[in-house]
């Protein structure tokens, strides 16, 4: 056991430079193994991919402005929503919070100097970027038109587009997910600071742990499944080819075995963020901490039991459909538990409304709506009607954009002072949160009605009676676009002009706020000793700055 030098008790200023200034130049970034720098690399690349996906979304909405729009041909439109779905899911939302925020704060919150495997961490960023570039290449050099779901035999035999490079890209980025999950699990298990028992873990870590379980056990299945599609296209294995006696529905089983749990990959981290933010801005311990923590694990496990609810009318057997419907309702319960506990946390709190809190509150409302419409989809007879209509589109955008993206933005705003050491202008944050909320609802609420009226998804042209609602939706999307651009502007602005944040601008209790902002290279000069329960807000705020 080496002797620990306690820099924290040494005289200020700290001798160690913060991680942003410890080495400059491209090399020091591209070859870094510091989890914080890797997080920043992720943040930049994810923002880029979000832009690409968002521009595709805007083009989709523009096309749908009128029923017989000539903006895009059928082929172009099909490539557009595939690009949108693939980029948003695999290259933005799945990695979003884990890779950016998780990479940044997991070691800080467990009280460690880095991840358990820093080099693997860097490798996972490279895998992500390589996968993303290959997919971008596919999109630019001809595009993919299978939808993000790659259903066979269309994708394996009929599609006349760049399916193979796309699946290779997703395959590679899948390993990035796996390695990130692996790193989190090992780090959380073996590197917690002394005294930081499971019962004291911030809820963010619980949900990242749950997310990692899905990364580890689900991602390999999508990898092999998409690999099979690629191999089938190139070598023709016959596995998904009905002419060879193959069963195209098998693909759907394998696809959703990952892709349903994947939707919880997208939402669980946001739930963790919301838990941390709500506790911080109401200065209260999360109500029912144990239940909120356990429900994360419950969601992760149950999420693997329900994938067949995407296939109720796909030709799976009636009995199987009933089993999957039944199980689907159980996964709603832990989500409900979380929502109720967050609400109860506000009770008798001391609530303030800085930007992160606005996102967290917005999350609660929109996630609830998205989740409750999920119940309608899990109900067999209703799903028969709304399957593959805009009702589905509305359901998942409510959860993924209204929920997960809100959570991501909330997290960015919450940890921005820690990551950069600078404060952004809070008023602009509030305004943009408000605009996003309005734009979002205007975009996606009409789609519930459209869907129930029967407008199928993936249509570049549609019957005229659906136009009015589509116009609302497109109008909303423009507002939403503006809302998303604003943070980009004022956050970048704050890098240069923002006020120094100090170690703990929000008066939060988790460990990352106990080091300076931005944190020094190896986080803690000496490994901290944790003696407090989680979210102990009874003490005086600690931000001296």
């Amino acid at each position: 056991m080496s002797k620990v030098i306690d820099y924290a008790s040494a005289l200020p200023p700290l001798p160690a430079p913060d991680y942003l200034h410890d080495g400059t130049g491209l090399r020091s970034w591209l070859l870094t193994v510091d989890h914080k720098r890797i997080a920043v690399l992720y943040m930049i690349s994810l923002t880029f991919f979000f832009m690409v996906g968002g521009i595709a979304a805007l083009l989709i909405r523009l096309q749908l402005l009128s029923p017989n729009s000539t903006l895009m041909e059928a082929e172009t439109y099909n490539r557009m929503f595939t690009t949108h779905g693939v980029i948003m899911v695999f290259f933005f939302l799945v990695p979003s919070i884990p890779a950016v925020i998780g990479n940044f704060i997991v070691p800080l919150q467990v009280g460690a100097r880095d991840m358990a495997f820093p080099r693997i961490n860097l490798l996972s960023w490279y895998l992500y970027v390589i996968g993303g570039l290959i997919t971008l290449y596919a999109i630019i050099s001809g595009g993919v038109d299978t939808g993000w779901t790659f259903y066979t035999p269309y994708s394996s035999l009929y599609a006349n587009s760049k399916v193979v490079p796309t699946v290779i890209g997703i395959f590679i980025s899948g390993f990035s997910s796996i390695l990130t999950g692996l790193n989190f699990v090992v780090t959380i298990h073996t590197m917690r600071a002394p005294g930081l028992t499971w019962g004291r873990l911030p809820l963010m870590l619980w949900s990242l742990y749950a997310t990692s379980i899905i990364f580890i056990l689900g991602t390999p299945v999508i990898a092999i499944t998409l690999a099979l599609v690629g191999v089938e296209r190139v070598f023709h294995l016959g596995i998904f080819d009905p002419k060879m006696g193959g069963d195209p529905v098998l693909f759907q089983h394998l696809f959703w075995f990952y892709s349903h749990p994947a939707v919880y990959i997208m939402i669980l981290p946001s739930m963790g963020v919301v838990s941390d933010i709500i506790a911080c801005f109401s200065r209260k311990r999360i109500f029912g901490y144990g239940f909120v923590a356990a429900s994360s694990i419950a969601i992760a496990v149950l999420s693997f039991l329900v994938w067949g609810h995407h296939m109720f009318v796909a030709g799976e057997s009636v009995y199987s459909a009933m089993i999957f419907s039944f199980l689907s309702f159980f996964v709603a319960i832990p989500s409900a538990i979380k929502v109720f506990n967050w609400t109860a946390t506000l009770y008798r709190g001391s609530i303030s409304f800085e930007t992160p809190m606005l996102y967290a509150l917005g999350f609660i409302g929109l996630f609830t709506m998205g989740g409750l419409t999920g119940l309608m989809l899990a109900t067999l007879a209703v799903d028969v009607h709304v399957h593959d209509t805009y009702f589905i589109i509305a359901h998942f955008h409510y959860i993924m954009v209204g929920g997960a993206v809100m959570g991501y933005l909330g997290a960015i705003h919450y940890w921005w002072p820690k990551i950069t050491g600078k404060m952004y202008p809070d008023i602009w944050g509030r305004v943009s949160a408000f605009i996003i909320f309005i734009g979002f609802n205007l975009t996606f609420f009409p789609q519930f009605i459209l869907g129930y009226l029967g407008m199928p998804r993936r249509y570049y042209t549609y019957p005229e009676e659906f136009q009015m609602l589509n116009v609302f939706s497109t109008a909303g999307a423009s507002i939403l676009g503006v809302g998303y651009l604003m943070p980009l502007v004022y956050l970048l602005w704050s890098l240069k002009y923002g006020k120094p944040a100090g170690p703990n601008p929000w008066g939060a209790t988790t460990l990352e706020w106990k080091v300076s902002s931005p944190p020094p290279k190896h986080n803690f000069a000496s490994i901290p000793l944790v003696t407090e329960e989680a979210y102990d807000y009874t003490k005086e705020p600690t931000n001296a700055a």
Partner: protein
Amino acid sequence: MNTSLQLIPDQASTTAARTDALFLFILAVSVFFTLLIAGLVIYFSLRYRRKSPDERPKPILGSLKLELAWTFLPLALVMIMFSWGAIIFFSNSRPPADAMEIYVIGKQWMWKFQHPEGPREINTLHVPVNRPVKLLMTSEDVIHDLFIPAFRIKHDVVPGRMLTQWFTATKVGEYHLFCSQYCGMQHANMNGKVIVMEEADYQKWLTGAETGSSAADAGEKLFLKYGCALCHSSRAPTMAGLFASTVKLADGSTVKADESYLRQSILQPRAQVVAGYSADLMPSFAGQLSEEQIMQLLAYIKSQKEVAATSQAANNSQKEGDSPSQAVSNSQKEGDSPSQAVSNSQKEGDSPSQAVSNSQKEGASPSQSVVKSQKEVASPSPAVSKSQKEVAATSPAATGNESP
């Protein structure tokens, strides 16, 4: 269909109202919880907003009672949703025995309907009101999905399988019909309408509807176009009386000339060579003919024989299920060059069958009785009788798709 803003689509089938009732129930529960949560969040936010920067509220650890309440109350509610939904779904999964049967083929990018009485339609489906209608659906290429919003029904149409859905229309009118499973370029245009008619009008329509040229006629054209006739009038065996006969092969064995044999003869001529003929004269047509064209050629070849053999034909094709079709090289070729440009747009005259057979156990499937009943209705007028024969001869192949 009205163009003003509607919130709920027409209710034009027996299940529509039932589905909507369930939907409204869940909607009510959802609205309640949304308002409850939103209301509480807003109320607490106002009531407990921070009044001074050094407020330190007392921590509340939790409450087991509350936790149990908001675990089990929602659980009870969702169990109601599940049971209600499952009941409707289950009863909708079982078509009434007396349902009228219509064959549906989805292909990129059109719907083809084949009425039992003969008429074929494309992208438009005429049905009588108040009579249960069962759709027997298969696809020629990729997965499609037949969706009729006004009836609240929808089901995927999967190649290689014969799947069903049914409805009883309750309101005369015209309704949308959509393909709602993404199926390639013109997915958005793979739609049409359902026309629900009074029974009498429907009967009138049936007799008046044009039945189009038959598959056999189309097959004859192909037989000429692809040069089959060149050889098969001199250097190669004749087609007359070939179907259902027993063929002697070069290796001394014999084989029954059923559909899969014919199919293989076209796609892999070297697999089974007719005794007395050159083994490598006939080229393989694998990859050159679409499934549909092969079907038409088969229909043509089958038609080259005495009408008396029709009933035997039906039996024969029934047996087809016993020997799984062996189109290896065919689909292999197709796989090498994935292309969706199989746009052979025969607008009419093709038969609904698509021999994608797996092992159908004889007699185990209801399709046989379907065939029989179709034959029984036969020949009210000479105009339709031709196509009826064809339905009788080909539909078993179409119904024999479902793998166990």
